[in-house]
Each structure stands twice: as structure tokens, then as C-alpha cells.
């Protein structure tokens, strides 16, 4: 029995391996085509994987929907810009930065880590204020947090450039860099979900009263998960900036909030595999629709969707998924290797809906 038990625990950790291999296959496939537009699409998709997996660490385990994560993303993105932009550029566009920051010329990697830590720190402070509230009230408060961050970053002219874009970020984030961070986020998310704190938090998601009666301090575990979640969301923000080369507060407001939550819900909010699946499926769908909007030619016939069709079709797909599979495409299950039959399968362990 103990041997089998040990084996089962090891198999539980097959999920991040499978997810990493799927993403690796995706990037490798794109790299083989040599298509530069595809490579950009792949990089953006993998940055979104880091973002949505970061979001899942909090939302998936706590069951509290957060509208505030685009705020942590903005904090990470601007932090990396402050640390890595050339001092001359900062003197010109961001004249009010404190001297040590204005003169900073960090390497991009430590800057990404620092961006994660700053976002995690802000998550700690904002979470301490927000997370004592119950489910829906906490969600509304996260939205208020987003509005605060957005307003500050769109008006703090000398530090964030306000609504005029910050330009000139090193565009070092290609598919491979983005893949490395996405895998790091997946590994961390899996470790957290299977930790004592992750288990306690998932118990509060199921039943707050029974969880507290089992001695679980809901607030503490929510706060810890938000801090870890904030870290990866902040890193995703930094990667986002360095994949586009341009920052604008509008990039970190309602649009990204909606699309990140949509990906989580479509894939299945109850599992890490769901978070990754949602990003891949919706990103590929968006890419396909964008191309259709631009028009394709089949033989003699030219076919083009009217512009704006993309948003409408994405909306329809989301509604269909929610109607047909309310728990998302993965139904809250993880991709996992099975003990007896070593093949990829949906694990039915967690699929029962209450």
C-alpha cells in the first residue's frame, strides 16, 4: 500500500510535466514553421499562460473571482520599464522618477524578478485589506483595486507617462523566454495547490463553515495564495511589456481583465490544466478569427469576415462553452498519468459538480 500511495503522489505531479510538454510542442511547432508572425503570436500566448496560471493560483484555489489582477500586471510591467529603460529615455519621458531609479540600468531577468516581487508586495497590502470580506464583496473590492491602479497609472505623468505610451522597452520576450516563465508558473501553481496551504484553501472554496471548523484560517491561506499569484501576474506584466516594447495603462484595464477571466472560465476554473487549456484554445481561436478578418483566398474566391466579427464570435463561443460545459472544457479535471494504464487521460477524480 505505501508503495502504491507514493506512486499516486508522484503521479499527481505528472500534471505540470504534461502541460509543459504541450506548451513545448506548441512552441517547437511554431519555431519549425519559421513564420515570424506566428512566433509573435506564440510569445503572446505564452505570456498569457503565465498571466492566467498566476490568476488561477488565487482564483482557482480560493473560488474568489478577482477583477484586480490586471492591476498587479500593470505594476509589474511598469516596474520592469523603470528598471531597464535607458537613463536618457527615462530623463525624457519619465522625469519624476527618483534618482536611483532614473539611473538604474538593470538586466532584464533580475528586473522581471523584481517586478514580480513588487506586485507580490502590493498583493500583500491590498489583500490584507480586501480578503477578510466574504466571496462576492471581496470580488467587488478587487475591482475597486483595479480602478485605483488604473487611475494612478493613467495620471502620474512624470512616473508612468500617464496616457502617453512608454516606448523603447527591450523586446527580448520571444516564444522561448515566454515558455520558460510559463513553465515556471505552472510548476509553482502545482506545488502550491498540492501544499498544505493549497489544500486548506480549496477546502474553504468547497465549504467555508466546515473548513473553519477543521481549524483552517481562511484569511491567512487566501492572503498567501494572493501573494504568490501576484508574483507571477507581475512577472507576466513585465513579459507583456517586453514582448510589445510599448506600455500604456489602457493595456491593463478591462480588456485584459475580461480576456484572462474568459480563458480561465472556458478552460475550467477548477484545475490548472483548465487554465492552460483555456489560454491555448481562446488564443488560437482569436488568431484564426483575426486572420479571417484580414481575408483569405481559397482558389479564386476571397473570403473575409467583417471587422468586429472576431469579438462577437469569441463571445458566442464563450456562451456556448458555458451552456454546454459549465465547469469549462476540462470540467475541473487535471491532465494526469494513470497508475495502471500509463496514458494521458482525463482524471475523473474531481469532475463531480455539486
Amino acid at each position, binding site marked *: *500500500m505505501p508503495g502504491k500511495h507514493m506512486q*499516486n503522489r508522484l503521479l499527481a505531479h505528472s500534471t505540470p510535466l504534461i502541460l509543459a510538454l504541450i506548451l513545448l510542442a506548441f512552441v517547437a511547432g511554431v519555431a519549425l514553421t519559421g513564420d515570424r508572425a506566428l512566433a509573435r503570436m506564440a510569445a503572446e500566448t505564452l505570456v498569457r499562460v503565465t498571466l492566467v496560471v498566476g490568476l488561477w493560483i488565487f482564483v482557482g484555489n480560493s473560488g474568489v473571482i478577482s477583477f484586480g489582477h490586471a492591476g498587479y500586471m500593470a505594476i509589474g510591467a511598469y516596474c520592469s520599464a523603470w528598471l531597464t529603460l535607458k537613463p536618457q529615455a527615462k530623463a525624457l519621458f519619465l522625469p519624476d522618477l527618483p534618482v536611483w531609479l532614473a539611473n538604474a540600468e538593470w538586466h532584464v531577468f533580475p528586473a522581471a524578478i523584481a517586478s514580480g516581487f513588487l506586485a507580490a508586495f502590493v498583493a500583500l497590502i491590498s489583500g490584507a485589506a480586501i480578503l477578510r470580506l466574504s466571496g462576492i464583496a471581496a470580488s467587488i473590492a478587487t475591482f475597486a483595486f483595479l480602478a485605483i491602479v488604473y487611475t494612478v497609472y493613467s495620471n502620474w505623468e512624470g512616473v508612468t507617462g500617464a496616457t502617453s505610451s512608454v516606448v523603447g522597452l527591450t523586446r527580448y520576450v520571444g516564444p522561448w523566454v515566454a515558455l520558460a516563465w510559463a513553465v515556471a508558473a505552472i510548476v509553482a501553481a502545482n506545488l502550491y495547490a498540492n501544499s*498544505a*496551504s493549497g*489544500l*486548506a484553501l*480549496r*477546502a474553504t*472554496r*468547497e*465549504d467555508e*463553515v*466546515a*473548513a*473553519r*471548523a*477543521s*481549524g*483552517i*484560517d*481562511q484569511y491567512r491561506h487566501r492572503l498567501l495564495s494572493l501573494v504568490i499569484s501576484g508574483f507571477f501576474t507581475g512577472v507576466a506584466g513585465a513579459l507583456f511589456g517586453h514582448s510589445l516594447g510599448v506600455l500604456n495603462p489602457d493595456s491593463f484595464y478591462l480588456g485584459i481583465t475580461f480576456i484572462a477571466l474568459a480563458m480561465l472560465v472556458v478552460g475550467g476554473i*477548477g484545475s490548472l490544466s483548465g487554465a492552460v487549456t483555456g489560454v491555448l484554445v481562446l488564443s488560437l481561436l482569436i488568431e484564426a478569427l483575426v486572420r479571417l478578418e484580414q481575408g483569405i483566398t481559397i482558389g479564386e474566391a476571397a473570403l473575409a469576415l467583417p471587422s468586429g466579427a472576431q469579438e462577437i464570435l469569441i463571445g458566442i463561443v464563450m456562451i456556448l462553452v458555458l451552456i454546454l460545459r459549465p465547469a469549462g472544457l476540462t470540467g*475541473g479535471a487535471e491532465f494526469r498519468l494513470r497508475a495502471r494504464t500509463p496514458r494521458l487521460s482525463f482524471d475523473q*477524480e*474531481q*469532475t*463531480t*459538480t*455539486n
Partner: protein
Amino acid sequence: MSRLGVFDVSVRYGKVPALTDVTLHIGEGERIFISGPNGAGKSSLLKAISGAVPTAHGRIELDGDLLTGRPPEAVARLGLSMVPEGREIFGRLTVEENLRVGTGIRRDADAVEGDIAEIYRAFPILAERRHASAGALSGGQQQMLAIGRALMTNPKLMMVDEPSLGLAPKIVDQVYDTLVALQEERGLTLLIVEQSSVRAGRVGGRMILLRGGQVVGEGDAAAFADKDALTEAYFGKTGKEAAE
């Protein structure tokens, strides 16, 4: 010193009194049934002890530690464990995860694996379905899981709220057999809310009768199973006298 001491406890929901000056003591290793009609305050008493509702007045102690005023998670840490009414298990967690949830508060982490093995020995069906989601279990199995989960915190006092609710009589027999066996094995102290005094009398133990938020009777459960005191508890003195 008694294991659990409840001294003059009152609970109010707004202005409505649910419990008035309830005093009771439970000794180590004892089995106590709390019985009484609907609205007698049985659940309020359990909630007050576990910290789920605040007390308006009075004091509750577990092994000399003051429970009053502490949130449920702190009360659980002091050694009180609860099998809630309606078997509130964590539906989308696996059976084994349900058992592990409560162990985060234990200081003897080394003993956890042994205790899980022991629970599986007591409930073989749970071992069989350890990796299944708890929500997929039958009602009786969920009740076993809820009991197993409560045991995993290694409690000084275990409270069980209406274990027979919504279960077939045969399953209820099994649940009580299990509780009694576990108590004999581990020297558990048990407080059970059981509406059926016949059932309580058959299982045996001390019985405390509540009515209208007050203790109206106390004694051997077997003696209560068919006694006037019970009729009185349910219908009141005036009701009984009027019937005579």
C-alpha cells in the same frame, strides 16, 4: 475537572433568545446525547461551543481553555472537532484530501500517516475510494468520511450534529456502531445531537434534554427512551396536565 464545561450560556439571534442560561459538564471519555424538539436550541448549543455563533452571556471551557469569544478555527485548534449537520464534506476534494484537511493544525505531523491508515482500517470503503471525489460518495459513506475527517484532528472532544439526518435506518445503525467502537478504542469524548431519544436510549449514554433553549432534563439515556419526562420536554407540563 470536566473535559467540557458550559457555564450559564445564553445565545440570542437579534432579540430572539435561542439558549438561556445553559449549564452542563462533560467528563473525559463520556458520551452525551443532546435531545429535544425542533427549536429547542440543540444546534445553537453546538454552534456556541464551536464558536460559530457568539454567546450573549456565559463561558465555555475545554480542558480549562476558554473557548468563548474565539473564532471557529481557534476553537478547533484547542481540540474541538465537529461533524456538521448534513455531512458537509468538501465535495470536489478527494476522500484522502478531505481527511488531510484538518491535519494542518496538528503538531505531531509524523503521526498523520498512521492515523490515516487507521481511519482506512475502520472504514475500508474510504480506503477503496481514497482518490475518488468526496461528492461522488453515497450519503452513508459521506457520513463516515465526515466522522473520519473529524477524527483526523485528534480531538479532545468530538461533536456530532444529527448523524441520523437523511440516512436509512440501517445506515444509521452502522454509523452509531462505528462511533461507539471508535469511542471504546480511543477513549473519545463524544457529544451527539440526536432528535430520536429512542435511538439515543438504544445506543446508551447520558442524555440532556433541551426545550425552549433551556435544560429541562438530564439522566441516563436508556431511562429517557419511554418516560414521562420526554413527553413533558416535547409538550410541556401544561400540555400534559391538560391531557390528564
